[in-house]
C-alpha cells in the first residue's frame, strides 16, 4: 500500500506530498504522522504541498485536523508551498485553515519553525516576525 514518507530532521518532521491525495491516503498520513510525532517527540511538522494541484473539502479539513492533532501533541505545524489555485479553491470552500501556519516555501517554513520552537537547536535564524 502506498504511503507518504515522513522524514525526520532534528526536532522537525518533514512531509512532502508528491502524489494526488485521495481520502484513504490522507487518513493513512494522519495515522502515521501522529504516531511519528509521539515516537520522536518532534516539536515541529512541515507539510510541503507544492506538488498538490487539486484539493477538495476533505483534504482541506484533513490539513486542519493534522495541525490541531499536532498541537495537542505539542508540535507546531507549518503548511508550505500552496499553489494559488489551491488557495483560491480552499477559500471558496470556506476553509481558511485559521489554525494552520503557512509559509511560501520550505526555506521560509523552516525559518518560521525554528523561531517558534525557540533557540538552542543550532539552526540559522531568520528575521523574526513581530
Amino acid at each position, binding site marked *: 500500500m502506498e504511503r507518504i514518507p515522513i522524514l525526520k530532521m532534528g526536532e522537525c518532521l518533514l512531509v512532502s506530498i508528491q502524489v494526488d491525495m485521495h481520502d484513504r491516503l490522507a487518513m493513512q498520513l494522519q495515522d502515521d504522522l501522529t504516531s511519528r510525532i509521539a515516537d520522536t517527540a518532534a516539536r515541529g511538522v512541515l507539510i510541503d504541498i507544492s506538488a498538490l494541484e487539486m484539493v477538495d473539502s476533505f483534504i482541506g479539513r484533513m490539513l486542519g485536523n493534522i495541525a490541531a492533532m499536532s498541537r495537542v501533541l505539542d508540535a507546531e505545524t507549518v503548511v508550505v508551498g500552496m499553489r494559488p489555485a489551491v488557495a*483560491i479553491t480552499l477559500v471558496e470552500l470556506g476553509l481558511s485553515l485559521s489554525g494552520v501556519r503557512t509559509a511560501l516555501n520550505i526555506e521560509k517554513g523552516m525559518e518560521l519553525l525554528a523561531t517558534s520552537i525557540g533557540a538552542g537547536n543550532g539552526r540559522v535564524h531568520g528575521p523574526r516576525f513581530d
Partner: protein
Amino acid sequence: MIETVTPRLAKLIRDRENDILGQWIALQTASAETRRDLMSESELRQQSSDFLSALRRALDSDPQIEFGNTVWADVRSLLAQISESRARQGFSPSETAMFVFSLKQPLFAAVQAGAKDAASLAQDTWTITTVIDRLGLYTTEAHQKSRESVIMRQQQEMMELSTPVVTMWEGILALPLIGTLDSARTQVVMENLLQRIVETGSSIAILDITGVPTVDTLVAQHLLKTVAAARLMGADCIISGIRPQIAQTIVHLGVDLNSVTTKATLADAFGTALRRLGLGIAKQPQPAA
C-alpha cells in the same frame, strides 16, 4: 392572395427604383434625424441603394415575408452592418431607425402612383407597413446589440487595467485597488496577487483601498477572502487606506476585520511591513560642511 402582393411590390420597386431612391435620399437628408456631420452623402446614397435592391430581391422570392428565411439574410446583414457602424459613429437609436422608416413615404407614393384599384392599394400599403415596421424594429435591436458589445468590451478593458500588483520592496507587494469590488473583479485581483506572491516570493502584501468608493458587507467579504487566500500561501496581508467614513461604515455593518492588520494610510502599512521584515528607513547623516 398574399402570394401576388410581394412580387407585385418587387416589380414596382424595380420599375421605379430611381424615383424611390431619389425621394428617399432627399427625405433622409432633409430630416433632422440625419446627421450630416457624422456621415457623407455618398455613403448614405450607397447604403440606401444597397438596401433597396436587397429588399427588392427578398420581396421577389419570399411571398410569406418570413424574416428567418435565408432570402432575408442579405437584408438582415446589411441592416446589422449599417446599425453597427452608426452606433459606433454616435447615432442615437431613433436616428438609426429613421433610415428604414423614412423609406415608407416614397414607397407609399410609388404604390399610389401605380395602383389599379382600391383593394390592391390597401393590400400593398398594409404589406409595406408590416415589412418596414419589422425592419425598423430589427434595426433598433441591432443598434442596441452593438452598443452593448461596446460596453462589454470597455468593461473587460477596465478590468484588465485596474488591477496592477506592484513591488514596493523586496518581499513587499502592494495592490492599489481602484473602483468598486465585485465578485468578478475580486477573482481577477486575487489571481493576480497570488501569482505575483509566488513569482516574487513576497511574504507581505498591502491591499490599499483608498480608491474604493464604498465598502459594504460584500466588498468586505471579498477583501477577507483575498486576505485568507494570501495567508494560505504564506503571505501576510495588511489593509490600508481606510478612510474615516469607511471605518465608521465597517463598524456599523458589524464586519469583523480583527483577523487582519489594518492601517489608515499606505505609508503606515509600508512602515509596518518594513518593521516585520526587520528593515527600516534611516535618515542619512549630513556630512559636516
